């Protein structure tokens, strides 16, 4: 059932109003007004999104709310419109983006209270949410790309928010450029789809058309394989950029220099989940490209493992969370790569809850310690920051997949899907990662909240719990992190996997290839998680000397992890420097300076000389004007006389 639902535009209009207000009036009307408008527009958007969600819930399964705002591009046969669409998939995403987004906006009011660029901050934040909502609500790939680019731009603006620090500005640029590389893949993917469809007489990027024509795309051959595979791989390249997967994940850890609520927004509600959403949205395309799906699953599992190893040893609290995000995103790609799109999106949702919460808690800790991020200078904060401690513990239990917290259900589904689609090796990698995850997360908890206080002396007595505007979002997210996973219980238990059933009309059912025993699979993963927690306890509470000794003994491995596998250095050596050399020596000094500048200056000189010459005729003398006029007349008349004679 498809229903016209004009109110969908409100979900975009309110954040857009927020952007305009904060941009043009924010500085004039002051902090109070901005701190009201910034979050308020998001809460209104959330209310409208809830209304739409409710409509979807009460309508028969597979129903869609649509609204076509206007026709956008007409170029030859190709046409596309600015159209919005809410089905089960985008309904869930919209709820996450507006709901978690609104909480982060609220939290920001307290966190950024002392920043002088308050209005600019909220302008960007609203724009970020707006872009993500465009991405999610788009009913065609091109409009989705508008949102896709929008979140890229906003991440750049917000990562480099404190732009007076050159390193921060540099990191902002890095995020932008790495994202652009992925975006190029997305664009090429779209071109491939347009080309493949045009071979069959269809000219559109609407998801409906793409779905209806998916088999046509899959039957078109291109570079030795099908157009579906090529397009899927190119689009996935885009996803690796936006969702921080190998090989384009390098921007995300550096993005931690932005204000902490921004990290929360990037990691929880917007941006990084875009890649997963895109693949789930195009599930019909990816299932027809098994090779591409295999790549997605493999990259996902490897990234999950790889990032988790780096997170084991990082001393910076936000860096740990950054790598944990990359790792968790790896899980999501493992899920969608195993053709269990519902599981991937389920993890997007639970991850939004607990990762948003983790970042906000980390922000609360950093806020209390006046900017300290090194966990070696924390410790024993449990009694001083009780709300932060308890909520962060809940989030940690959730990400460590301890039942019955939310992360358990989603991660379990992903690992089960990986096993049952025959990716045994990837399943093993995923299970090991589960152990690593609970280790590094509890390491974070123990180092921050337990043990001896290692806080700098002068900061010690400034420690304070956060204001209510920051505490309320913590508590709300803690509740969601605890119970949010219960919408997807294992089959046979109470209402079963309601989440997957809800999404099934859009993303299809998961069809297992190998039959596994869900209980056994779950037990293995959960036990490994438990072992991770115990090891962390031993290392950081019982035998605090042990990690130091171990790091010294395994110096090579420790250094490798601490330096993040030297990936940045490798990129620098093999990609950045050669590129820079080529750009500077060949393109800049050679082509630009001599060839292009020469040509442009030459052309400019020619035009100016000619212009000056012609200007002489423009003497101001009216007789001259009439004379030139007459020449024109003679020309025209001569032409017609010629025409008559011939």
């Amino acid at each position: 059932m498809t229903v016209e639902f004009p109110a969908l535009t409100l979900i975009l209009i309110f954040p857009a109003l927020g952007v305009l207000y904060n941009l043009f009036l924010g500085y004039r009307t002051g902090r109070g007004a901005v701190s009201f408008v910034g979050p308020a527009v998001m809460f209104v958007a959330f209310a409208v999104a809830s209304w739409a969600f409710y409509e979807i819930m009460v309508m028969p399964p597979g129903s869609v709310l649509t609204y076509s705002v206007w026709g956008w591009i007409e170029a030859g046969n190709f046409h596309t419109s600015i159209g919005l669409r809410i089905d089960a998939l985008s309904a869930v995403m919209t709820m996450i983006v507006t709901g978690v987004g609104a909480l982060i906006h609220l939290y920001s009011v307290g966190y950024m209270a002392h920043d002088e660029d308050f209005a600019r901050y909220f302008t960007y934040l609203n724009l970020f949410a707006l872009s993500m909502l465009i991405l999610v609500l788009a009913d065609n790939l091109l409009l989705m790309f508008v949102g896709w680019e929008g979140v890229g731009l906003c991440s750049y603006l917000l990562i480099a928010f404190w732009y007076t620090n050159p390193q921060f500005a540099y990191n902002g640029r890095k995020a932008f450029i790495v994202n652009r590389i992925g975006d190029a893949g997305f664009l090429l993917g779209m071109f491939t789809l347009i080309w493949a469809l045009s071979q069959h007489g269809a000219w559109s990027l609407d998801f409906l058309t793409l779905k209806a024509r998916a088999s046509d795309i899959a039957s078109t051959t291109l570079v030795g394989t099908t157009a579906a595979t090529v397009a899927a791989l190119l689009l996935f390249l885009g996803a690796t950029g936006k969702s921080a997967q190998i090989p384009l994940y390098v921007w995300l850890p550096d993005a931690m220099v932005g204000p902490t609520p921004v990290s929360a927004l990037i990691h929880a509600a917007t941006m990084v989940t875009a890649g997963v959403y895109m693949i789930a949205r195009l599930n019909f395309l990816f299932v027809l490209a098994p090779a591409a799906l295999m790549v997605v699953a493999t990259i996902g599992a490897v990234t999950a493992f790889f990032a988790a190893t780096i997170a084991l040893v990082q001393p910076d609290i936000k860096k740990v969370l950054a790598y944990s995000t990359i790792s968790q995103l790896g899980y999501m790609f493992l899920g969608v790569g195993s053709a269990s799109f519902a599981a991937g999106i389920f993890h997007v949702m639970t991850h939004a809850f607990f990762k948003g919460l983790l970042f906000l808690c980390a922000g609360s800790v950093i806020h209390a310690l006046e900017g300290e991020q090194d966990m070696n200078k924390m410790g024993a904060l449990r009694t001083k920051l009780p709300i932060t401690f308890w909520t962060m513990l809940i989030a940690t239990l959730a990400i460590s997949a301890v039942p019955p917290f939310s992360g358990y259900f989603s991660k379990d589904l992903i690992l089960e899907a990986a096993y049952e689609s025959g990716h045994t090796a990837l399943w093993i990698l995923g299970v090991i990662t589960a152990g690593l995850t609970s280790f590094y997360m509890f390491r974070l908890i123990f180092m921050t909240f337990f043990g001896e206080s290692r806080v700098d002396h002068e900061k010690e007595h400034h420690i304070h719990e956060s204001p209510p505007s920051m505490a309320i979002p913590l508590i709300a997210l803690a509740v969601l992190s605890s119970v949010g996973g219960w919408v997807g219980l294992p089959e046979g238990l109470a209402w079963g996997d309601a989440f997957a059933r809800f999404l099934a009309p859009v993303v299809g059912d998961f069809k297992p290839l190998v039959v596994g025993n869900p209980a056994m699979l779950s037990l293995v993963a959960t036990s490994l998680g438990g072992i991770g927690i115990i090891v962390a306890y031993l290392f950081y509470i019982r035998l605090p000397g042990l990690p130091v000794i171990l790091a010294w003994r395994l110096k090579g491995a420790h250094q490798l992890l601490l330096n993040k596998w030297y990936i940045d250095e490798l990129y620098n050596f093999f990609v950045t420097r050669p590129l820079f050399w080529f750009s500077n020596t060949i393109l800049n000094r050679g082509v630009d300076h001599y060839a292009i500048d020469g040509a442009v200056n030459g052309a400019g000189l020619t035009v100016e000389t000619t212009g000056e010459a012609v200007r002489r005729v423009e003497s101001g003398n009216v007789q001259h004007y009439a004379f030139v006029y007459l020449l024109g007349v003679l020309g025209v008349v001569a032409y017609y006389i010629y025409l008559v004679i011939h």
Partner: protein
Amino acid sequence: MINFSQINLVWLPVLPLVVIATAAMVVLLVGVRVDDEESDGLGWLALASIVIALVLALGIFGQSGIAFAGAIAIDSFSAFFELSILIAAALTVLMSLDYADEHRLPGAEYYSLLLFSVLGMMLMATASDLIVIFIGLETMSLAVYVLAGLLRRDPRSSEAAIKYFLLGAFSTGFLLYGIALIYGATGTIKLVAIHAALTGPLLSNPLLLLGLGLMLIGFGFKVAAVPFHMWTPDVYEGAPTPITAFMAVGVKIAAFAGFLRVFMVQLGPASAAWTDVMWAISALTMTVGNMLAIVQSNIKRMLAYSAIAHAGYILVALTAGGPQAGGAILYYLLGYAFTNLGAFAVVVALERRGAAGDQIADYRGLATRQPLMAAAMAIFLLSLLGIPPLVGFVGKFYLFNAAVHRGFVGLVVIGVLNSAASAYYYLSVVVAMYMQEGGFLEETRRSRPALVAAIAIALIGTVLIGIYPEPYFTAAGNAYQSAMSPEEVHAATAMAP
């Protein structure tokens, strides 16, 4: 039951004209008793009449017929042009209100002449025989000649008026001679009848061809096509700036209305005879206009040459012909009205009597002094340059697209190259505003809400019609189609009382 369609047929279509004509006379009569420094009231009166005419003109959309014994065409084509002209006139009045006070312009003359010229323009847009077109053209021109010279204390203004008048009279001669020759060849001045007569041997009749050529020259002068353009920069520079804006937009729209109806619609069957000449004029106009714009240092002269170049772009589509090109021209002119009037409105805002302010160098550092004004100017210039998603881009795209479809690839290549070259002079103003310092320090002055409103409206038009072109483009296409089928118009006439 009364059949309104029969009653309305004669009066409704000319009601906008009647309103404007009445208002012009009222302003003139009332204005005699009003001091020059308090001419605002007259301006508002003029604006009110324009708005009423605008609403009435909306009613003409979708109608089809002929009134006054075939002298007036009632169709969406007229309506679209009347709307464009009235919008241009309304914006001109808005930007004149303060200007007229500050420059002590005689209000009665100023606003009544403005209305009379609007009347002439609308007459050109609705005319459907050659004599009415000529009357419209003269009504418009005579009023504008005087308007150009209204800054009586400024010798440049008087010079502009004299030059414009001399060359204008010169060119009117050609137009009238052309009309006479065409009458001689076809035996009629009715456009519909001319269209019907253009078959067989008549198409190579020397009288017709020469008449065609001379009319082309006459219209070419009014749209400032090269080589009939020489008056433009001097007149644009000397005239009061709101009048310059009005000439660059209103006169051009009206001239193209006549040009389009006569050449593309009615003389369409003889297109083989004028396509080549038009091709050459179009290429020349674009190239010379842009090349000379590059070397200007005065912003009004620069915009004058830019207006010449834009006439060249429109002539590309006119050369190509066909319904697609027709719709594109109508759309382009509507967008051009907003954009160009906006740019001139910013010039008006920064200009001071007797002081500097119209040199491009005076715009240096404007972005720090008046950020909103600079941003508006930048948007107008970018639209003129043709940057998406502004209306200038969409319009140019439609123009060139139509020409490519008719196979005029060479001309379009010239057009695109020219458009790229135009970046130099448009962006140099943007560069001056945003990246250079110094410039002309204008003293703080009282706020001028009417002028700001004009800029705001122009800005909204420039952005909105560009982002959301569909309805306007569809309306433009339909409007052109409505003038395309004289046979149908004929049929409608037969039914009328």
